[in-house]
């Protein structure tokens, strides 16, 4: 009886509490649409969340990815055994974000947002749609045409016909058209003025994306004949050749709008052209950069400086995560010679070329080399950088080497092997290639410590790209060579190298390669020109497919007339990058995940899948 009484009391208590709305309370941790879209600070926070979710491909947060191509190799800790490119390498499939943006667009057009200033509403609508179209663009260059789902926010409720939520893939041309048209509309919504540290998209970012999409589509249409099997029957992959001219026209007109807009230009503040190029890319808020991923301290830093810094200037134990290959260093031209091959041997290959200083072999190089790479004998923020693999001496008719631990000296006090190496060990944080990355590495020593990390930004779009697209589109449209040269020579002049009097597509390929090192262009460029399978052909005899290193030696042999001079060995980097890179036809487009097809049987597979 007593038990029953207790039960009765408990039941009555629960019921009465329930009656007072205990179970119906508003959540205190979830904000309603009403609360979010009536407050500008809230809206900005939501946009910031989206801006933070769109780093794909090579970026400062995944520095190791730079070693996948031919611009850098893994130096720290052991060989990199990659040879093939993954079927899902850098693949983007983010309909979650697209749906989130659609929710946002619905929110800012709802009653809750009725009091927003119209100009402000245009701006945030433009930014949200820009982020959405950036997602589509990234998916498109990975996989070709993908489902275009429009503005609707799809909801599933039990019992509904699931097939109404399943969209087929668009063709590649349709998706590029959608991107181009969206960018046109977005450009009219966004403000013209540059934003703080270029972190938010403005009109010119939308136009740059439009131009980039157009030039990608144009070159795929024109050059897809080089890879005749890289297409699908329904056009999800591959663009008809007759559309090329129209896309080139769009790209040409769009970049000329940017150039005429006058808000951005090539950065030329520093009379030292090498330092100027570093500042053009790495100095925040400069007038060349149109859109960037910004980082800040404290709280929003990236670890790239910590990962890639040179040993002798590091602030922590980490260094040399990825280091430049000799290949990219030799890609930079000499001022007096378009062939950038380092002259380390005499013309008949009979003897070394002897240099008084290690930097002499790089004398007269394209100034962008300094701005991109720390090379032997250059400096890092004023600190001289020494790279010395060992000493050489002449014995019994041949050169022999003496090397030792990093930073060691011989009994005369002369350096044997430098702190910066290079050497062939698989130890952690040891330089294996003879160079370090300068671009995107911060000069602030604290930025290389684990506790702080770096606030260096990552440049997504800058004015130089507009000039390069203008040159490429003008070339493909058959405009006068003087006009084509006019665009490309602005870039070459800033780099301090000879102007061109005629331009071919190979010149465009070359110029983009050295201008945009580490800026996440190379992979997409070689794919759209359909030359990636030739550049990275998987053959160890092919220079462009194989990573090379440069080992500097100082001669220590008092009996030899060249005593004290510097010589250089070019070596295939098999100890750090074992195999040549092999790009197969299947790598032109990522594979479609079977899981997506299981959920949406209307999605067709890509070639080679």
């Amino acid at each position, binding site marked *: 009886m007593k038990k029953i009484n207790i039960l009765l009391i408990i039941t009555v208590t629960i019921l009465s509490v329930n009656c007072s709305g205990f179970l119906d309370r508003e959540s205190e941790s979830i904000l309603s649409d009403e609360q979010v879209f009536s407050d500008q600070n809230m809206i900005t926070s939501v946009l910031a969340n989206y801006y933070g979710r769109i780093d794909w491909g090579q970026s400062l947060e995944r520095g190791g990815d730079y070693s996948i191509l031919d611009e850098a190799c893994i130096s720290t800790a052991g060989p990199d055994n990659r040879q093939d490119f993954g079927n899902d390498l850098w693949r983007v499939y983010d309909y979650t974000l697209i749906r989130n943006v659609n929710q946002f667009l619905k929110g800012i057009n709802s009653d809750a947002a009725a009091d927003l200033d119209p100009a402000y509403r245009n701006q945030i609508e433009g930014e949200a749609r820009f982020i959405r179209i950036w997602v589509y663009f990234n998916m498109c260059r990975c996989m070709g045409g993908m489902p275009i789902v429009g503005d609707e926010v799809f909801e599933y409720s039990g019992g509904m016909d699931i097939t109404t939520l399943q969209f087929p893939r668009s063709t590649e041309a349709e998706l590029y058209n959608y991107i181009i048209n969206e960018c046109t509309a977005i450009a009219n919504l966004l403000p013209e003025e540059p934003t703080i540290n270029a972190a938010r998209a403005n009109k010119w970012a939308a136009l740059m994306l439009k131009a980039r999409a157009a030039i990608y589509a144009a070159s795929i249409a024109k050059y897809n004949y080089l890879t005749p099997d890289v297409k699908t029957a329904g056009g999800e992959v591959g663009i008809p050749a007759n559309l090329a001219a129209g896309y080139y026209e769009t790209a040409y007109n769009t970049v000329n709008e940017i150039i005429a807009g006058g808000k951005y230009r090539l950065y030329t503040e520093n009379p030292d052209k090498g330092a100027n190029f570093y500042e053009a890319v790495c100095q925040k808020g400069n007038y060349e950069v149109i859109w960037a991923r910004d980082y800040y301290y404290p709280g929003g830093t990236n670890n790239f400086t910590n990962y890639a810094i040179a040993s002798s200037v590091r602030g922590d134990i980490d260094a040399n995560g990825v280091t430049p290959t000799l290949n990219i260093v030799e890609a930079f031209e000499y001022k007096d010679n378009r062939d950038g091959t380092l002259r380390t041997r005499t013309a008949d290959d009979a003897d070394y070329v002897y240099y008084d200083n290690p930097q002499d072999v790089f004398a007269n190089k394209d100034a962008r080399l300094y701005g991109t790479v720390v090379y032997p004998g250059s400096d890092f923020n004023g600190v001289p950088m020494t790279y010395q693999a060992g000493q050489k001496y002449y014995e019994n008719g041949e050169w022999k080497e003496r090397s030792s631990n990093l930073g060691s000296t011989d009994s005369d006090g002369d350096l044997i092997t430098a702190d910066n190496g290079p050497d062939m060990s698989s130890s952690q944080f040891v330089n294996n290639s003879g160079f370090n990355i300068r671009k995107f590495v911060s000069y602030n020593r604290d930025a290389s410590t684990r506790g702080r990390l770096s606030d260096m930004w990552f440049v997504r779009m800058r004015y130089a790209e507009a000039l390069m697209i203008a040159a490429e589109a003008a070339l493909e449209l058959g405009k006068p060579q003087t006009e084509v040269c006019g665009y490309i020579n602005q870039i070459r002049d800033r780099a301090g190298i000879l102007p061109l009097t005629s331009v071919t597509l190979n010149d465009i390929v070359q110029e983009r390669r050295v201008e945009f090192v580490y800026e996440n262009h190379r992979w997409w460029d070689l794919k759209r020109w359909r030359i990636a399978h030739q550049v990275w052909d998987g053959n160890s005899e092919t220079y462009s497919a194989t990573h090379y290193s440069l080992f500097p030696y100082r001669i220590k042999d008092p009996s030899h007339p060249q005593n004290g001079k510097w010589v250089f060995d070019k070596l295939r980097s098999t100890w750090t990058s074992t195999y*040549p890179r092999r790009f197969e036809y299947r790598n032109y487009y990522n594979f479609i995940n079977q899981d997506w097809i299981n959920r949406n049987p209307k999605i067709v597979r890509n070639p080679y899948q």
Partner: protein
Amino acid sequence: MKTLIKVYVLAILIAVTAASCGKDNYDKPESHFTGKVTYNGQALGVRGSNGSVYLQFWQDGYELKTSFNVYVTQDGTYSSMLSDGVYKLVTASGNGPWVSAQDTVIVTVNGDTQKDYEVTPYYTLSNINYSVSGNTLTASFDVASVTTDRAIEYVALMVNKTQFVDFGDGTHVNWVRNSEATPGRVELQLDISNDLANQKALYARVGLKIDGVGEGVYDTNVYKIK
């Protein structure tokens, strides 16, 4: 009391173990499936290393689908251990040195089963002869064009220190290529003095790389030099 608990625990353990044996596991695949990729009934030689050439197996009747690959080896054969059932056998588009038709072949596996997969190659190699005289390896063979829509990128004579000999990096120690070859009789010569001196074993094979296609067609046999 304690003994009783022990007995209960033991009984439950036995029950759980016995039940899981019966319910959770499929039988292991026990049927040996074999076959070869053929053209007019003749096997086609392919690259046998690196998982390059493969056929996909699909099976209907399940909600979610995932294919599994069966790899084709150098002499054009493939084999796999399968559970009995009905499978669909198909090539991946663009994979293999043949016209990408992706014909589906229905395979009913019931015990050991043999089923070939017929394709249309771009080129065939036949009447292949190898000979070694001194330090020179010579190979001659007939190249026949089956379709006309793909050019020859090159023909090659390769040697390797293992029985895997193909165009891949690391699967030939020496090779000679001729990118001017046309259909008809082709002869290739390779100086193998270094290889004879340095390798414990040496195998040779010829192949033809097709322009615009990732793979090549090869001799189905390897020639053992030493």
